[in-house]
């Protein structure tokens, strides 16, 4: 295992220290793994809290700042943070206007955030929750765990954050977050596995000409294994599966994210985007904006995910609103 780390047990602690050292607009709540805006709580504003296991950087602390999140809770690598930590985040960002929890749909995240919400409500804080489940690779069914939350989560942060910073109510912010969740879909693929530092070995093995399609962001294997494909075939595979689930007709408008999983360089992501943009053009779907880069990673996994967000006027306006964070500035 070749990593620039000090010790596997320390990675999250060290990373958070390095992060607040780099970004003066962030602070670390003492004794916790919670990163909050240095000016939290922002009075008159609904607080936005997200988080999850670490290893997805810049998610989520990279999205803390004006116009996006108020706090991010970092669990151990690929391990949901615990309820006490989430509670600290909620308390730190509540200005009396209530707090929205943006949760990625994993059993652990949902349970830990739910318990924190119960604890916060017991302390008299109004809490709402939304659960992001954008990953179309996974069968959606009420009998199972349902779909995972992956890169589409970042659009929820952006849009809910923009509305919150305009002074909307908790109910309104929750509503727009749920609208994004209804209109966003993603799917990923991996060229290589990743190594949880404390585990020291890769989560799965892939042959020199094998890839995993429909992969999550926790180093878990994908939905099926395939032969290495060209960037064009990859883009087509991901896009077609997404469009099956989120029908977009000619004339409709979308935002696109080509997300790198950690070790895939921008060059390759742009090559994927070439095909994605061509295919969308063929179908008459207007691309309002395209985001290319590492937005929701999986340690040093090589691969990418594609996210499509169907836009209407409201979402477009909020997507384009200003934001000042470590990983999203506009």
């Amino acid at each position, binding site marked *: 295992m070749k990593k620039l780390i000090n010790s596997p047990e320390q990675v999250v602690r060290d990373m958070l220290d390095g992060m607040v050292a780099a970004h003066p607009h962030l602070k670390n709540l003492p004794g916790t793994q919670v990163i909050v805006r240095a000016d939290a709580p922002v009075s008159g504003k609904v607080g936005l809290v997200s988080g999850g296991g670490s290893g997805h950087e810049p998610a989520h602390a990279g999205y803390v700042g004006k116009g996006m999140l108020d706090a991010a809770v970092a669990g151990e690598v690929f391990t949901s943070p*615990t309820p006490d930590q989430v509670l600290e985040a909620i308390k730190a960002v509540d200005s009396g206007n209530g707090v929205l929890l943006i949760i990625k749909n994993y059993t652990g995240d949902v349970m830990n955030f739910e318990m924190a919400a119960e604890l916060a409500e017991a302390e008299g804080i109004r809490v709402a929750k939304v659960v992001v489940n954008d990953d179309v690779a996974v069968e959606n069914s009420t009998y199972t765990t349902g779909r995972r939350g992956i890169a589409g989560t970042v659009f929820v942060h952006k849009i809910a954050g923009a509305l919150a910073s305009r002074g909307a109510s908790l109910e309104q912010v929750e509503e727009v977050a749920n609208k994004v969740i209804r209109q966003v879909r993603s799917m990923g693929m991996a060229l290589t596995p990743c190594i949880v530092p404390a585990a020291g070995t890769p989560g799965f093995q892939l042959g020199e000409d094998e890839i995993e399609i429909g992969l999550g962001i*926790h180093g878990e294997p994908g939905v099926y294994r395939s032969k290495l494909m060209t960037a064009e075939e990859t883009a087509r595979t991901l896009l077609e599966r997404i469009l099956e689930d989120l029908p977009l007709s000619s004339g409709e408008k979308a935002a696109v994210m080509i997300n790198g999983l950690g070790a895939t360089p921008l060059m390759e992501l742009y090559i994927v985007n070439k095909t994605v943009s061509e295919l969308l053009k063929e179908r008459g779907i207007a691309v309002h904006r395209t985001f290319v880069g590492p937005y929701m990673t999986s340690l040093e996994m090589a691969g990418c995910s594609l996210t499509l967000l169907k836009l209407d006027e409201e979402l477009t306006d909020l997507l384009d609103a200003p934001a000042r964070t470590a990983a999203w500035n506009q």
Partner: protein
Amino acid sequence: MITLKQVESWLIETNRILQEKKAYLTQLDQAIGDGDHGINLARGFQEVAKNLSDQSAPDIGALLKNVAMTLLSKVGGASGPLYGTAFLKMSTALKDKVEAAPEEFARALAEAADGIQMRGKARVGDKTMLDVWKPVADLAVQQGDRLSWEALLQCSLKQMESTRNLEAKKGRAAYLGRRSVGHLDPGAVSSHYLFEALSGTMTREETAG
């Protein structure tokens, strides 16, 4: 009667096994999950064992409440709230008890299993830790004051093994669908270690006592 001391021994023995099996549990979780189960539980029970030696609780209920809070704040992931809830429910069932009759302890296990089911919304057969907890607790309740630790151990082992051929319906392994078949569920295995430790501790103490 099950004493406060025995419950302490049980937890220390559980920690010993989990530290020993940390890498194995992580391997199991790598196969159908995200590879952190061993790490998560080893971190949590390490802390439980440390707290046991640092401070003493007045009764079984208080002891198990401390354990629950430690697991809730140290484990994380799916197993943190599940194990945390299980111990919280047991602590409520054994509130203020300095010792517990076998049937009381069995009812506490049943409360714990129901807590896991309530929190995780799984059913037996979904290839989760519940596949061990529920049948073991049911057996214990059924046996009442004639509780056999050996029978409980066998049931736990059998249930753990049963997860191998199931398709996961809950938790991270569910994303794999049919590809989850053929692998033991890591949470079922760690739960079995808990019951192995319980049975081992109780048998040893009975023999010794």
